[in-house]
């Protein structure tokens, strides 16, 4: 195999399997949407880490044949959904082939009585939900990537949707998984309440244990009524205490989103709408002014987080949406409102929640203008029990705030804890020897920002990721959360599922070649 091209070999061994080693395809499949890749692209480095080629199987049987061939020839394989991951879970090398599952979109069985759907892994998110709606059902899973993500990708990354308060995350929706192990064997794992349940091992395994080919998902009746409300709070902490009270009292708003004062100001102004996909411009001030401002992020963060900033911006904002049938959602909202108004909440009407629902996916398309302005942006989603939330919020915010401008919202609450979603934007730091170029200096700031924030999250007792996954971007820090035993256990699982280690090798392993190097100097990952 070493002397021949993997795609040519595969085509000879498996005639009829759709594949390509075209240069454009290899570039298109060289990466996911990890924002650090965008910096490389802006610097003119489109993708040095291109795969040998791409294969597009049309059935589980074909996936099985491809993986068996890869196992026999020792060819590494990277499973691929829609490529919207943000943690470098896809970072192939020239020895690897990418296995794109998007041709596998069939609904195998819709059981309307049990409310389950067995659907193939390449099914895209939005058409799935729309087709379910037409039949009177909802999956209840609305990640902001729903326009550019697949069922298989959701499973691989442990995705969360905007309605997690009622329907849970993807791991709470999977009743069975059909997958192909690293030796090509097809296996169906089933949810079991009181027996061994292996599904949680594959969900979140990011393509390292098995290739997910279909999932049996739990459905719910499509909601026929909704109740909307927004509340403002003097501080973000007042807001999350209100979320905690709701969830611990047994209320389950499908949506509960708490914005810090700056994020709340954007939500009140409808900035998402004005700065959406069609705007093409840079947000607010001119690009040059923004670059200058963001060179001193500490001062801006201090101003925005303090009492003056909070008063100036109008405090925090909580959006709540209950959904279900009949007057159930309204009744639940009445209970919630009575509870929240005893906790310094001020009712702001239905408007902000209605507006949010209307523009719920627009925010995901605001990144390109930021990069075009010479800046960078990213998001970080961490979680902790409620008792550690304050330390997590303060610690990560402080760590990020030394390097970048930061804002936050909390949009996935549970009875025992919550996820904090930090959004940040930064710019190039001072020139250093060997790091004089603008984009290289941005990379330095970017890497230092992440390193400090992840360390702070673990120190505060939080988890490194709530729903984006770990990928190669967070893998170097995984042992700080899982410990050496946890890492060894993950490696044991990899050996059990994939004895030759051909599935997405290097992902989720702290000791694999890193996309970073010490002190944030640039490096291409080619191993």
């Amino acid at each position, binding site marked *: 195999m070493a002397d021949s091209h993997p795609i040519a070999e595969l085509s000879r061994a498996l005639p009829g399997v759709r594949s390509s080693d075209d240069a454009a395809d290899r570039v298109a499949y060289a990466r996911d949407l990890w924002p650090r890749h965008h910096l490389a692209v802006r610097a003119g480095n489109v993708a040095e880490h291109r795969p040998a080629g791409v294969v597009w199987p049309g059935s589980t049987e074909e996936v099985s044949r491809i993986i068996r061939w890869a196992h026999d020839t020792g060819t590494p394989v990277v499973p691929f959904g829609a490529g919207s991951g943000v943690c470098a879970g896809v970072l192939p090398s020239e020895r690897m082939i990418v296995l794109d599952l998007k041709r596998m979109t069939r609904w195998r069985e819709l059981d309307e009585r049990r409310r389950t759907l067995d659907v193939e892994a390449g099914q895209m998110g939005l058409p799935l939900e729309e087709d379910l709606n037409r039949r009177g059902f909802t999956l209840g899973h609305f990640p902001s990537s729903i326009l550019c993500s697949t069922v298989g990708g959701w499973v691989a990354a442990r995705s*969360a949707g905007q309605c997690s308060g009622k329907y849970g995350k993807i791991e709470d929706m999977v009743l069975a998984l059909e997958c192909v192990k690293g030796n090509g064997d097809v296996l169906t794992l089933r949810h079991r309440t009181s027996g061994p349940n292996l599904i949680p091992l594959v969900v979140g395994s990011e393509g390292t244990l098995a290739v997910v080919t279909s999932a049996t998902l739990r459905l719910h009746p499509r909601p026929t009524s909704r109740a909307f409300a927004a509340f403002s709070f003097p501080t973000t902490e007042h807001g999350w205490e209100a979320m905690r009270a709701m969830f611990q*009292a047994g209320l389950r708003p499908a949506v509960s989103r708490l914005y810090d004062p700056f994020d709340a100001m954007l939500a009140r102004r409808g900035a998402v709408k004005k700065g959406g996909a069609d705007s093409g411009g840079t947000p607010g001030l001119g690009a040059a002014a923004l670059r200058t401002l963001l060179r001193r992020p500490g001062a801006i963060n201090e101003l925005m987080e303090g009492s003056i900033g909070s008063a100036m911006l109008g405090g925090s904002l909580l959006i709540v949406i209950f959904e279900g049938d009949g007057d159930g959602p309204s009744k639940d909202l009445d209970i919630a409102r009575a509870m929240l108004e005893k906790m310094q909440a001020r009712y702001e009407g239905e408007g902000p929640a209605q507006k949010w629902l209307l523009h719920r996916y627009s925010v995901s398309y605001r990144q390109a203008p930021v990069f075009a302005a010479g800046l960078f942006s990213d998001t970080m989603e961490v979680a902790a*029990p409620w008792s550690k939330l304050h330390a997590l919020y303060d610690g990560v915010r402080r760590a990020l705030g030394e390097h970048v401008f930061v804002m936050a919202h909390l949009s996935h609450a549970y009875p025992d804890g919550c996820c904090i979603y930090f959004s940040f934007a930064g710019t190039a730091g001072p020139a250093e020897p060997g790091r004089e170029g603008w984009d290289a200096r941005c990379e330095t700031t970017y890497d230092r920002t992440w390193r400090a924030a992840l360390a702070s999250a673990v120190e505060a007792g939080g988890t490194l990721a709530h729903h984006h996954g770990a990928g190669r971007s967070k893998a170097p820090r995984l042992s700080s959360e899982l410990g050496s035993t946890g890492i060894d256990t993950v490696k044991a699982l990899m*050996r059990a599922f994939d004895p030759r280690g051909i599935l997405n090798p290097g992902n*989720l392993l702290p000791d694999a070649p890193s996309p970073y190097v010490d002190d944030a100097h640039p490096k291409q990952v080619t191993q």
Partner: protein
Amino acid sequence: MSFEIDRASLLVRVPGAATLTSIEQALAREGLTLGVAATDDAVGDWLARGAPGAPSPLSDPADHLVAGVTATLINGSTLEVRPAPRRAVGPDLMALVVGARERFASIDHVWLRVHLTGARPVTLSTEGLDLDPPVSNEEASLLDAIARELAR
């Protein structure tokens, strides 16, 4: 036996040898409950058997029974999964503990979710769902492989 109650998060950390009855008694003094029938089963053993009698996790998808665990693996090393409401950092290693009948690990301590006494239960319908299908030959074979690799 000492139990550590995290009141803000509604979590309790208990030794695997503690009985459900003893935990429930301690929680009752704080106005809390496990929300399951109290028996003389040790909690570690009860969880290893899949927590019989506990509500299905599908009845309230935003909640869960176990938030974190410290367990001794069959290779003698100690696995610690810190409490978190949800995480996305690779495979969920708690699947090697809960419902696995001590095939891979035994519980030393566990973080359990507790409820305010009188809190409204959440019960989405699970009617018609097969929550305990038999273990297939393929799954049994994989369980064997995992045990072998963990023991190495």
